[in-house]
């Protein structure tokens, strides 16, 4: 196992800048998730770490040692591909042992390690089959096993669950988390699925347009998003975000949004009269009187997801989504009172959190 450091990684494809100045440090044994919408450069970054793509600028370090000049096979990393990329002409056992065979490991210990990995993943019965005879979930396990058998310094996983159906995905996600706890390896995991990122990662790296927007623990990313992109990208349903102005009235701070005013008493911000954006998570809005700040919203539509309900409403000239318990009974057109704790409100100035 090893720690991974990226220093100022930049990559251009023609005129398109895929990555610009990416800095990252992943501790030994950490599960690091690269999260971002498609085209944000996360897979390119993974390929650069593996050595499959060469960066234009910057450096990749494993345990503090630069590996920029090493070929993929000499970097001692293992990769699990989105498409699994198993060798179709080899049996599962040969697929698992291929990396060891290429490294000249004696046959006997290859067999032992293949068996050990197969046992850990529950694929002992499949060792004599070919990838073509396996189901999607089984192939995924073989792909994982092929990486594990090698005992590499760093695991690179490129959206390994995205080809599984939803139910299987939830199961494998849990197993992956347990597996990481067992083998305590350094993992770089690429995904566009925020649930995977939040549940798996020790460290989540949010990326867009080839840049890192925020690095932090899942809780931090969710509770204290660094900018409006992270704020709206993480969380479902999406955070409510309003553009407006901070005002001081009767010695109290107010947010003047589009067609509504929000009392922000108790907050200390020195940005009076500035343009800001205010974000409120759907679960941070209370329905009914009793809280500090009271607003009126008009119910437009209700989505029932079973365990709870999302209420889509009009607030001033904007829209608002509120998370409500499944028992909530509202009708479209109804006016509902809302309470918001000023300390649960996220305020962004020029896109950045304050």
């Amino acid at each position, binding site marked *: 196992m090893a720690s991974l450091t990226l220093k100022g990684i930049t990559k251009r494809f023609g005129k398109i800048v895929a990555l610009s100045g990416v800095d990252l440090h992943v501790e030994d044994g950490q599960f690091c998730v690269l999260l971002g919408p498609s085209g944000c450069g996360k897979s390119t970054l993974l390929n650069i770490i593996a050595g*499959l793509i060469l960066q234009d600028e910057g450096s990749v370090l494993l345990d503090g040692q630069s590996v920029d000049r090493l070929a993929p096979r000499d970097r001692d990393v293992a990769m699990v591909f989105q*498409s699994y990329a198993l060798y*179709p*002409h080899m049996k599962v056992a040969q697929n698992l042992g291929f990396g060891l065979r290429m490294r000249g490991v004696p046959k006997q210990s290859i067999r032992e390690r293949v068996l050990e990995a197969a046992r850990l993943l529950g694929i002992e019965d499949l060792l004599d089959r070919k990838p073509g005879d396996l189901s999607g979930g089984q*192939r995924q396990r073989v792909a994982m096993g092929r990486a594990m058998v090698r005992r590499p310094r760093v695991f690179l996983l490129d959206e390994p669950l995205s080809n599984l159906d939803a139910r299987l995905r939830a199961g494998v996600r849990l197993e992956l988390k347990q597996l990481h706890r067992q083998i305590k390896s350094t993992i770089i995991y690429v995904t566009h699925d925020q649930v995977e990122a939040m549940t798996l990662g020790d460290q989540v790296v949010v990326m867009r347009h080839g840049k890192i927007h925020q690095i932090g623990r899942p809780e931090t990313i969710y509770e204290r998003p660094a900018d409006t992109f992270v704020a709206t990208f993480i969380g479902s349903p999406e955070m409510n975000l309003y553009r407006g102005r901070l005002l001081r009235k009767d010695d109290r701070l107010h947010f003047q949004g589009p067609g509504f005013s929000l009392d922000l008493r108790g907050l200390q911000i020195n940005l009076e009269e500035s343009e800001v954006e205010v974000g409120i998570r759907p679960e941070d809005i209370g329905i009914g009187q009793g809280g500090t700040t009271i607003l009126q919203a008009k119910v437009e539509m209700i989505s029932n997801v079973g365990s709870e309900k999302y209420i889509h409403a009009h607030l001033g000239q904007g829209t608002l989504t509120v998370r409500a318990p499944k028992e909530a009974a509202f009708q479209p057109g109804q006016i509902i009172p809302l309470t918001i704790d000023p300390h649960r409100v996220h305020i962004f100035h020029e896109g950045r959190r304050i």
Partner: protein
Amino acid sequence: MSREYFEQTIIRILRVVGLIFFIIIVAFPFYWMIVSSFKSLGEILLRPANLGLDIRKIDFHAYYAVLFEHGFLQYISNSVYVSILTVVLSVTLATVGGYAVTRLRFRGRKIMSYSILLIYMFPAIVLVIPLYVMFSRMGLRDSINLLILVYLAQTLPVALYMLKSYFQTLPPEMEHAGLIDGCSRLGVIWRIVIPLSAPALASVALYTFMIAWNEFLFAFMFLDTPEKFTLSRGVVQLAQSVHLSKQLVMAASVTVTIPILVLFLFFERCLVRGLTAGAMKG
């Protein structure tokens, strides 16, 4: 009778009639060649229009004469040498070259990959005279190895193009996996690309072999010494000889045709597709 049934019947009848028609066109000369090669000269002269073959009168003498008296044993060995070497060289070079234009990024890659086929656009007859003059002056004419070089030039463009098209269908992630698992580029080609390309390699080998085995024009122009003749050149030599006896020419033609036929039937089984099934998500 419904209209659909009527149409189906017509199509079925047309299909059978068409098939029979083409089988006759293709198979008849072949049949006649074989039948004639088993007859004695007297038999042919007595009843030239006789299409049948009397099993009791089968005569292998023509084959004996062709092989041992007219030097065809030497011609066969020459042809085998030329064809096999052409196949080995062509397949090897086309694999490496086709892989390069498919996967590697280098300056001039696009021009390279287009110009491959451009070379093939020149008809052989345009090239043969200048090449004849050139090789004569270089003193390289009348050499069997020269013939291999010419056949290589003739088959390599198509071989490259075929393999390039096939390599493009292979998922690159599989090769990336190989690179990470510890292979070099050549290792990836040898252990992953080649095993998965077996059907394409078989077709390329078959195509190259057929060209090299059947080629006549260059063999006719470049070879002077009878000991160096290839089979096709030998057959023409035989057909032009003064004491023309038809059964000999027919027997010679059969010896040219049979190896190709056997090879095709053997390789045909390898030409099945779908070896990559199971690599990807499916």
